[in-house]
Each structure stands twice: as structure tokens, then as C-alpha cells.
């Protein structure tokens, strides 16, 4: 087993809108190592989200191979993908996507429940990660009682609490003001380093990109 977590070989994906065919990804080849934080930049509609969705196992390529930790994922059933996601992939969304009826604590705990982690370990992990994102005091607040930055910190905690191999973040700072965005970027970066997780971030944000180990540019569905 080598150190590559994400590997795409000639991955293509296209959509048809009426008669028009849009090639969202054109034969993309890419390898990302363990613990690497990679920024994916590009203009709107260039294929960033498409790439991330495939890497996050919530979408499938039309052609090419996607290997996650050296395992070919093309043949996995939807159920197997779900199981894979709950164990190994964390997600951070642009609009936070916290569950409004769950408290901060419960939102963060949810992935661990899905993963079948036992009671005691769940408590330790959730408490620990909430402390690290600075939300220990807000554990029993509901998401709509929090600011945008606090919500995104909850989302970061939710993505990292299960100690995933890979975290997918699609424009995580787009809905935040620039100061908050900076804090968030710092936080993600330090988490990446401490936890040794692989981080794929789609972003328009130059500062975000600069913080990453590597910056990739995608234009019209192709890496440049």
C-alpha cells in the first residue's frame, strides 16, 4: 500500500442538457498523497464540484478510473459507497448543511453513530473535537443560534470527528466574511497537518489556495 489516497486516471464526466452536451471533466488524471491539502481553483462551471463529487464518492465518472486508497471504486454498489463514505470521507459544504433539529453536539456525533462507534468513544471524540474548534460551550446550541463562522466550525468538526482519510470541501469559505474565512482556513490547515488527512478544497479564494500544499487549476473540465 503506497501513500496515495486519491488517484484519478483519465476520468471524464459529461452532462446532457437538452441537445447540448457539457463535458464537465475531460480525461482528468491526478494523484493526491496522504496528508496533502490540495486547492482546486478555476472559473465558475469549470468542473471543480464535479471533480470533488467523484472524489467524495457521491458521483460516478462516465469513463476512467477513480481509486481511493488504491482501491478501484468504479464497481462499488451505492450501498458500498455509502459505507465507504461513512468510514473514510468527511464533507464540508458551502452552506454548512447542518441538521437544524440537532444540537451542535448531535450534528457532530451523527457520523459516529452512522459508523457504529460505541457510546463512550463517541462522547470522547465529540467533546475533544468541539474543544478544538472552540465550540465546547456551544455544544447544546442549535445551528440557527450560531453565526456563519461557528456553523462552519461545526461542519469542520463533523467532517473530522470520525478521523477520515479524506475530506472534501466545496467552497467552504464562500459564505463567510474574509476574517472568518481566514480563521477557517487556518483551522482546516492545522487539522490537516495534525490528523494527517487528505484535504481537497474547491475554492475561489486566493488566500485559501495559498495555504494549501498544492494548487491545481481546472479550466473547461481539464487540469492545467
Amino acid at each position: 500500500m503506497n501513500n496515495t489516497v486519491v488517484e484519478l486516471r483519465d476520468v471524464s464526466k459529461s452532462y446532457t442538457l437538452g441537445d447540448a452536451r457539457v463535458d464537465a471533466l475531460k480525461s482528468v488524471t491526478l494523484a493526491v498523497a496522504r496528508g496533502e491539502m490540495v486547492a482546486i481553483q478555476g472559473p465558475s462551471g469549470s468542473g471543480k464540484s464535479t471533480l470533488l463529487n467523484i472524489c467524495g464518492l457521491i458521483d460516478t465518472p462516465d469513463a476512467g478510473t477513480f481509486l481511493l486508497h488504491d482501491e478501484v471504486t468504479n464497481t462499488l454498489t451505492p450501498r458500498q459507497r455509502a459505507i465507504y463514505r461513512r468510514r473514510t470521507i468527511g464533507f464540508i459544504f458551502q452552506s454548512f448543511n447542518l441538521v437544524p433539529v440537532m444540537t451542535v453536539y448531535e450534528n457532530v456525533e451523527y457520523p459516529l453513530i452512522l459508523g457504529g462507534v460505541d457510546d463512550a468513544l463517541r462522547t470522547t471524540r465529540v467533546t475533544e473535537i468541539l474543544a478544538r474548534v472552540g465550540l465546547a460551550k456551544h455544544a447544546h446550541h442549535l445551528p440557527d443560534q450560531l453565526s456563519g463562522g461557528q456553523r462552519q466550525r461545526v461542519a469542520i468538526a463533523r467532517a473530522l470527528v470520525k478521523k477520515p482519510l479524506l475530506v472534501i470541501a466545496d467552497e467552504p469559505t464562500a459564505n463567510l466574511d474574509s476574517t472568518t474565512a481566514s480563521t477557517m482556513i487556518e483551522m482546516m490547515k492545522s487539522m490537516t497537518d495534525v490528523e494527517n488527512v487528505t484535504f481537497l478544497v474547491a475554492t475561489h479564494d486566493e488566500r485559501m489556495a495559498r495555504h494549501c500544499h498544492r494548487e491545481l487549476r481546472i479550466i473547461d473540465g481539464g487540469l492545467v
Partner: protein
Amino acid sequence: MKIYLKRIKFAWKNIWRNRRRSGATMGVTAMGVTGLLFFGGFALYTYESLEEFSARQQGHVVLSHANFYAQNEEKPMQHGVEDWEKIRADLKSNTDVRQVLPRIEFTGLISNGDKSSIFVGSGVDACYEFTVTGPFLEVTQGEVLNPDSDMPTIMLGKGLAQQFGTHIGDSLTLLTTTVDGTLNGVDAKVVGIFGTGVPEMDQRKLYVSLNVAQNLIATRRVSTLSVYLKNTALTMAYVDKLKQRYPQLATRSWDELATFYHGVRNLYDRIFAVMGFVIVIVVLLSIINTIGMTVVERTREIGTLAALGALPGELLFNFVIEAAMIGVIGSAIGMLVAGGITLSLFYGNVMMPPPPGMTQGYPLRIAFSSALYAKTALAMLAITIVGAYFAARKGVRKPIVEALAHV
């Protein structure tokens, strides 16, 4: 907290995300439950009353000559029961039997000398008949037949009494044919006037003592022996026993003879079925609407949870729990309302108008049946679960990327 408790907690919070919509569906469920319990309880009460009425009138089991129901008599009492005293004594020795009443059914002419009319008479055991038939015979004037009377006495239906302008103490003549076809008559004193609740009956019906009827027809036989049991539930087993013991006689249970009871029951059962069907459809549509809209509203949440690794089945189950909660709360409210109505009717005494062909109304009551409550609640639970399943089935399988892009 246990995980299943958390699921219930989240479901509980979720159903209140749209109070008005969930509340409306609970209301629809509650009304459906109340409607079913109200009408169901009313039907059950009616069945019970008619059961008692039938059983009181003709007895739980009626023994007669084998051909009594099958053929017309060519001569009076041709199909009467012979040696009935012996049979009666034998039947009474059974501890389940409360009473055995012999009866003679006969017809003839009744006259006051100036005019005459047809009557339908019953010769009865004056000692016991009127205690057993109880509240279903209303004596409006005078009193019931006296078994110790040394002269023939009669009780007249009030319509019949009216035709003759008869009062208590007047004397009337009964004419009928004897077993060998000759005409026979007797003068009898009127001791009582009664109403049965059915005007047609009151026009024709009269009671005399068994021995008066027997003398008039010149027979020792009786038409039927009505067996009154201590408990209606014993009827079927007892009928089987009697059939073995007296194979030469015809044995009928009250149930077989109560055509009115069965008519009403059929009608009410059908009304209940139609009503139940409509309620089921309304509740089903309501829950499908509620859950369907909830699923659409929560599309992005579904996408998020699915991305985190929740399976469609798990997501579907959450919606089913929510729907079941709505169903349970709605049913509980419906039961409380129905229970309240049952109690208030019990103490309030609301009268129903007389049914067709009857002269008297009856109190509106609804029976409380735990089986009916349980079945109704289970039905509602099943409907909400089925409704939620169909309403959410597609939504939880939406492609994750699409669901996440939903606004």
C-alpha cells in the same frame, strides 16, 4: 442517550418544524378516529340492544316440532310439541338454563258482540313470561296476566283495545278453530293493555294464559319451548347439545330467528365499511401530502445525510417514524374525544327518534369496545406508515449531488 431514543427525539422535533401542516394531519387523523369510534360504538351498542331484544323476545334457543318452520300446518297445532312438560323439566335441570317458556301461537277472531277483528294470540306461562320478556313489553293500563286467576283473562295490544273501545274489566269473546276443525270460543276478561313499540303488532296482538289457549284449541301441545340461558354467549354450545339430545325436534338459536337484527347489522356493517374506506383514504392522502412536502423541503438535508453515509432505508425509516408519531398523536386525540362523547352520552341521555315502524325512540348510546379502539388505532398507524413509505420512497433515493444542489 440510546440511539433509538435519539431517533425518536429527532423525529419529534422534525414533526414540529411545520406545526400547521403536522397539526392539520393530526387533526384529520383524530377526526377519522373519532368518526370510526363513534359510529362503530353506536353500531355495537345497537347490536347489543337488538341481541338482548331478540333473546328476550323469543329466548336464546327455540325448540319446536321438526316441521314447525318447514311446512304449513293443515290443522291447528298439527306441528306442536308433544309431552312438553317432560322436556321442559329436563331442560330446566341444566344449570345454564334460567327459564323455559312454553308458548302457543294461534290466530282467530275477537269480538265484543257488535264487531269483531282478527287477532294474533300467544298462550303463555303467566307465572314467568312477563318477568322474562321484561322491559320490552310496556303495560300501559291494568296489569299482566295473573296465573292464579280462576277465570279466563286476556291482555290486549293497545291498538286492538282502541278498536273495541275496551277498558280494563270488560269482557271479550275469542273464537278459533280446534285441532279437529270445529269452532270454539271463550269469554275472557281484559286485565291489561300493552304496547310493543311496533304499531302493527299492537293492532293484532293479545296474550292469554297457556291453559286458556290450550282449552280453546283443544290440545295439550304447545307451539314452541323457548329456552332462556343465563348468558347469551352460551347459546351456540347449547344449541349443539340440544340438537343431539332432541334430534326429533327443530332447534333454532335466537340468532337464526332474528331477521331484524341481521338486517340492521348488515346495513350498519356496510355503512361502517364505506365510512371506514373514506376515512382511510382521507387520512392516507393527508399523510402522503404532509410527508411528501416534508421530503421535498428537506431534500438538501437528505442529500447531506446521504453524503455522510446514511442509507436510503435509514432515511426512509426516519420519515416513517415521523408519520407514525403523527398517526399516534392523532389517534390518541381521536380516542379521547370519542371517549368523552361516549361518557357524555351515557350521562346526558340524548334520545334518538323512533326507527321506521316503531313508536318509541331510544337513547343514543355508544358502546365502548377496547377491541374497536385498538383496531382503529392500529389501522391508523398502518395507514400513516404505508403513506409515509410511499411518500418518501423516491425522495430518499434522489442522487446525492442533485439533492445537495436543491435549494
